[in-house]
């Protein structure tokens, strides 16, 4: 029995295989409901199956012990899972990493730094332009994610930044 939670959906689910009928047919149980499932093809990268007479295709993109990144019928979803053996309390992971996310202003796109609009020590309000990137011939502003004071400007004019690179801290 494994417990699942889907990001952006307010419920949690218990799920397991309850019977292997042979010939790739299974009965699975999600919370209190049983479903017929037929595996059409499967490997470590994805699965095709028929669930209650409906075909579905899932790709397994990335997974860690308790998080799966899947694309189901072209819809990307993130599923958190853990077995009932370890009673972990889910942390509500809003940002992509730990506490530092609250300070570091990261670029959400790759691009070339065209201009930096702030200096060390400037006060900014959430939404103020911190720097401007160019990508695909467009200029895209990177805006402050919170009110605060600019520290540790990492971006340099003319340099390239990758997605997720830190532009500066806002403390």
């Amino acid at each position: 029995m494994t417990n699942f939670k889907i990001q952006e959906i307010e419920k949690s689910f218990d799920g397991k295989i309850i019977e292997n009928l042979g010939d790739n047919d299974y009965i699975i149980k999600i919370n209190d409901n049983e479903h017929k499932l037929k595996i059409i093809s499967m490997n470590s990268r994805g699965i095709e199956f028929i669930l209650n007479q409906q075909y579905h295709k899932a790709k397994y993109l990335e997974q860690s012990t308790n998080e799966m990144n899947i694309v189901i019928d072209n819809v990307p979803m993130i599923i958190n899972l853990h077995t009932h053996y370890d009673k972990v309390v889910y942390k509500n992971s809003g940002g992509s990493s730990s506490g530092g996310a609250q300070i570091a202003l990261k670029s959400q796109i790759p691009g070339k730094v065209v201009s930096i609009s702030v200096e060390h020590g400037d006060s900014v309000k959430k939404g103020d332009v911190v720097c401007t990137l160019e990508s695909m011939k467009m200029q895209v502003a990177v805006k402050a994610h919170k009110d605060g004071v600019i520290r540790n400007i990492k971006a340099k004019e003319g340099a390239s930044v990758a997605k997720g690179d830190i532009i500066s801290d806002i403390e």
Partner: protein
Amino acid sequence: MIEKVLIANRGEIALRVIRTCKALGIKTVAVYSDEDTNSMHVKQATEAYHIGEAAPAKSYLNQEKILDVMLSSGADAVHPGYGFLSENDDFARLCEKNKITFIGPSADSMNLCGDKMECKAAMLKAEVPTVPGSPGLVKDAEDAAKVANDIGYPVMLKSVYGGGGRGIRIVTNDKELHDGFETVTSESIAAVGKSAIIVEKFLEKTRHIEYQMCRDHHGNSVHLFERECSIQRRNQKLIEQTPSPVVDDAKREEIGEIVVRAAEAVDYTNLGTAEFLRADNGEFYFIEINARLQVEHPISEMVSGLDFVKLQIDIANGEPLPFKQKDLKMNGYAIECRINAEDTFLDFAPSTGPVPDVTIPSGPNVRCDTYLYPGCTVSPFYDSLMAKLCTWGPTFDESRTRMLTALNDMYVEGVETSIPLYKTILNSEEYKKGELSTDFLKRYGMIDKLTEDLKQEKENKTDAALAAAIIHSEYFKSQVQNNSNNSANWKNKLD
């Protein structure tokens, strides 16, 4: 007669030109940058030549290098596509000088079209109605502010070298005008190396309606009907359709006659587009001529039954148009969705990187022009248009539902796309009723609707997602145990 065409472009438009050349038995020469070695246009052309580094200035904008390839490959014509050198009259002139047919208007005509002020003057003379604004270039932000205060805010700042939504800002007061002036200047310099700005009245709740125009070297001019391109973001078109829901036969003919006058006023040859704003009161104002094949040309091909690239080549060969205006009849309804690599929720910021997998929709009345293939890469060096998804139907609603089906079928792994947004738009009551305007997204709160739709979609897929997760976690459990029959059973399923 043209026998070998060099395509001075990349991406889907290079492929589009190659397809028609193949069908006509014309040889093709592709050029490619370091970034594009693995691109489809290199693979589909008869010959392919490397022309430089990834940055456009070092490759697709490098006129001398492209000329070298034209001469060494023996190409007798060049198709510029859109963007890059397509509206560069210096390049057109360079081709003319080297006796290579430039598939497009003459350098002089292109120069006139590209000079937004001279073009406007020519249109006024030909009694083509234009938008109120500065009588010419503005010297600086001060000058722009004076015009803006004369004609009244909001106004549009436009680089005369811009296009495709770049080098344009709408400003509503003097402060915004000063900031905008800077941005437009720098964007224009980044794109083409120079900048010059005009000011125009910004009309609210307008529709963008454009006409395909077509003129041969014998003075025969026709229009190939209109396209409505009102669904935009950042002044860039997202969804186009033809016919426009607000253009009936009488209106089509009325504006069509103006379009023919416009083509003649600038001595335009080959195919081009006359763009209009339609104010909420029904008035049409000419804004500019795009002196090239337009991104959204496929929908006009679908309703006219014509191959526009073939038509371009025929005109470039000096052939007279094989039809008169009265022979042309619109047939059915077509829609195009521009599948962009961008994140709707990050203010449409570009999304680039490898695309390990892709599914291209197909089927009757579905056409997808794209450079994508499984394993390709969306480059940050070029624009965000990955694919043009077009559908046709004998009724508007049939083309709309076909588009929704096609959007559902399409999948691009690895980058964010505009596909989910288009599903929300096409399902909206406003779109169905044809209540379009260039501020459609904001006016009808489409981004919020999209957020709701995505949540609903996830809820609908919950059982299936959980089933996939259950099987996957059990599978790995059995792999770890690796001692039961169950495990052997799973192994059979592995490829």
